[in-house]
């Protein structure tokens, strides 16, 4: 099975999707906060810590968001709170890529637990589609566009993130079209 195929298989199930999001969330946290992080700290900082290197691109949506930071935080915090998630005490800011992946990890986890509960799965699918389109896609594409690091690991990680998000947007939009009474987001 080609890696692409394997990825499709993993993304086929809610549990698989939750695991992929969990891993992406870990990979985009600073190596100092994660054991066996796939990337060495200097490579991670050079790629993703703008305070550190001129080639770095921020992992926070706020850096690519021309408007008020608190507006962005409000919508994100409302999404998280709508599903019962409160911020941890020393949590990273709500617009950080790792935090947004953790949220998708949680929604997919709920979907996996919902088993055959059609209504819950539909609600979770709609939420995932909206969050992907309004927040995660913009951030992942912004990071992908701003990424200047030459490190193969970092480039592959971002490419993986983009392909996962694309695949997920396709999946959740198809689910939406099957159900016409889902008003489009635009």
């Amino acid at each position, binding site marked *: 099975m080609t890696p692409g195929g394997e990825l499709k298989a993993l993304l086929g199930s809610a549990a698989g999707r939750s695991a992929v999001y969990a891993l992406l969330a870990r990979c985009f946290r600073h190596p100092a906060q994660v054991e066996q992080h*796939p990337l060495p700290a200097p490579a991670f900082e050079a790629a993703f810590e703008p305070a550190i290197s001129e080639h770095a691109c921020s992992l926070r949506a706020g850096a690519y968001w021309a408007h008020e930071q608190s507006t962005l935080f409000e919508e994100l915090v409302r999404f998280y709170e*709508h599903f019962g998630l409160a911020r941890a005490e020393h949590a990273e800011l709500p617009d950080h890529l790792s935090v947004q992946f953790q949220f998708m990890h949680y929604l997919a986890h709920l979907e996996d637990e919902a088993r055959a509960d059609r209504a819950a799965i539909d609600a979770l699918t709609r939420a995932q589609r909206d969050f992907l389109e309004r927040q995660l896609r913009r951030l992942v594409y912004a990071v992908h566009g701003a990424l200047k690091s030459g490190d193969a690991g970092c480039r592959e990680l971002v490419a993986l993130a983009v392909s996962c998000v694309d695949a997920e947007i396709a999946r959740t939009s198809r689910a939406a079209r099957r159900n016409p009474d889902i008003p489009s987001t635009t």
Partner: protein
Amino acid sequence: MNVDRREFLRRAAALVGSLALPDFVPPPAAAASRARVPAYASWADVYRKQWSWDRVVRSTHHLNCWFQAHCAWDVYVKDGLVFREEQAGEYEPVNAHLPDYNPRGCQKGGCFSTRMYEPTRVTHPLKRVGPRGGGRWERVSWEAALDDIADAYLDVTVEEGTDRTIWDLGPGIDLGVSMAAQGRFSMLTQSVGLDMDGEIGDSRRGTLETFGKIVFERSADDYFYSDLILFWGGNPLYTQIPQAHFYTEARYGGARIISITPDYNPSAMKADLWIPIKPGTDAALALAVCREIVFGGHVDEAFVREQTDLPLLVRGDTKRYLREADIAAGGQAAYHVLWDAQSGALRAAPYRSLALEALVPELDVKRTVRLADGTDVEVRSVYSLLKDRLAEYTPEAAGAECGASPALVRRLAGEIIAAKRLANISQTSLCKYFHGNLAERSIALVFALTGNIGRRGANFSGFPLLTPDGGDKFTIPPSLSEAAATFGKLEPLIKQRMAAGDTHEMIVTDLGRLLFVPGNPLLRLPVWTSGTLFWHVHGGIGELAEKSESWGLGNKRPLNEYVEESIAKHWQPLNPPPDRPPRIMISLCSNPLRRARGADKLLEVLWPKLKKIVVLDWRVSSTGRQADYILPVAPWYERTSLKWVTPLSPYLTITNAATPPRGESKCDWDIIVMLARHIQARAKARGIGSVKSPQGLEVRLDTLYDDLTMQGAFKEGDDDKVARTLYELGNTHKKLTWDELKEKGFARFENLPDEPSSIGNMCEIPPDDSIVPLTFHVRDKVPYPTASRRIQFYVDHPYYEELDELLPRYKAPPKIGGDYPLVMTGGKTRWSIHSTWRDSPLMLKLERSPEPYMLVASPDAAKRGIADGDWIRVRNDVGSFATIARVSPNLRPGQTLMYHAWEQFQFSGAGDMNSVSPTPLNPVELAGGHPHLTAGVLQGQNSVFDRDTRIDIERLRGRPS
């Protein structure tokens, strides 16, 4: 390990079924999974729920708002994030007659929370990579950063001395929790703190020369009692936003306002009369008014005889005061002499009190007296000398000098003479002119001659400061339990001086002066030195003034001769001495490269001397860019502290940690205590015990942390405990407990602080009426801390004699920077407190231009073909920079004006607004060895002068690259 797909999928598969949410707190797992999935149709549902706050915390912004410090704010917190703030507006009325203080606040405080989450915020220790100023950093741990700094500190301290480490204490110092840590560190290590009061141009030299102190001011509601308010040299609509309503309300209460400034500034808009004068000529106008008062017979003789040195006699031969010892064997050398009209004889001037009892001091005295040694000498009263001096300042002559019509001069004098309760406003513009001291002395003379001092609604404006007084009791003793023993050593000295007739204020002020005399036998104190002199000598800014001979400063000798004499005679403190270059600089709430005039010199001369430059800040400032380390500081909503305020708004206002510090940022207290821990650990590891300070004091490096934290009583994370202790040690607040204060956020001062920087107010703080400074002198006849123990207009010091400034007079502004047609004046900006908001997008959008601009008078711009918005080059003998011209009809032809605090990275092309300001030292400020012309806490040191800088401007084709 690289991240290839196969490896990624293998790891993902291993995570199936697990749940890891490090940044979240999920709902309790026990709840049935079905219940945890809320209904969701579209993203708009997310906005269905009302947006409410978890907490509203009372806090403020502890930076150097000076005249307008501070305001109680409500900080709205949700999910550990600050979303907005709004003024609390809960100040109780002082009494039924006075307008209350609500709501306070300003546009800058109103958007502080937007700054906390900007990507530019530094949240982790950063170490420089590549050259200084290259703007490239590496994130390091606290341990690694502090170990490296500790080692550098130990190398320098052991090999070169304890006085090689410098604390650059910026205007933002709180004299609260942060300074408690820095004070103990400096006391223990004898490292040197720079007193920046003179260096930021707030020396108020003339006020020191006249009152023996600079710190005294009323409460802003006291203006409601005044019937004539002078906006002389200031712009309160820019610099006192939270309390400017008292002026406009006083106007509706019948008061008249007269504005006296070169430009029609926004505060002149609220005046009943605006008097446009040439920049730097205020002394001429003031002395003309004094002439009308004296020659018109309007002197408040009772006040003048009792409270001022005008009746005291001066010897014609030595030009020094006549002393009792001169005229009577066994007479006191310290006693001055006056001519008593009642008994028709020489009498010693009252010494222990200003009360005249039966004496009626003659004002206008000119006679010959027989000295104890039999010789005869002509003596004259200061009043008599002054009358000769004032005679030449006719409305016509002075009017010509200051550019006001004689009728306008007479009109001003007439209104001042008619006023029953005269006031002027806090400002530090005049003292930024080279001869600013003469302007302050002349204006003070107006107030003294008319007795408008020390009465409700009537006062000359000093420098506003009101500091909680627990700091010294926490900083100085080895531990709180040993405080009594430590301060007990002073009892004999205090008893002896009180017996000799010295006042409590004089003694407290002198104890403050010991900070500038490291190694004094009485008390082991933190070490302070003159910030201006440090930048001048060690920073190389003195080199800018080498051409000063051609600028008409009026010095009788080369400037360096005065500097060397003053340092040699210890008239002015400079630590470390010129031959011991500084090696380590730690910046606390400071941004010298943006603030110091001629800052380019610091990079050229000081920076190479420094082995380690550490900046504590929460954003990257001009100085941060040139540092070796930036240590992330938690801003005010993320820590607890208390700080000084001013009598204008006499409310101790505290910050409350609304949210925990972000990332790895910490409060100053924690950072300095951690540094001490690392120094102690590294000293032990390297077998370093103690070293001697240049004055022979033992500096224990291997127990620094234990000593600083009082054997662990106040460690990292104890900023709230320290704040509580400082509050409880002080005696300015007894009504509220610390916890009650944290809840309310502010508390009115109840007593005058008993410490060097605030005791100068010399008055009670009534709970139910306005604050009237200097009451103890005027009402209770307590002597002033001057040589003559009175408001002193005759400054008997060799430098003042040499430079003909014994008496107030007018000197034309020198052409600093060279003989150029325009003068570059300045002022505090409306849009930032120093540089903290200078790059805030919201503030820049609401200002007239988002980039640095210079106001140019319409005719001067027309003459040079400059249109509004054109790029121009500003230059003189010293340097040049580029900026945008904004043509204004409100500026006096020949005057240009740049508001302050632009950062270096906001100027296009080379140089910035400080590049043209050589700020040569004024020799009179180098005086010392005199009862009140001596360096003290936040006073008596050299100042900077950038308001008489001569320049020319020329149009540029466009923005320079």
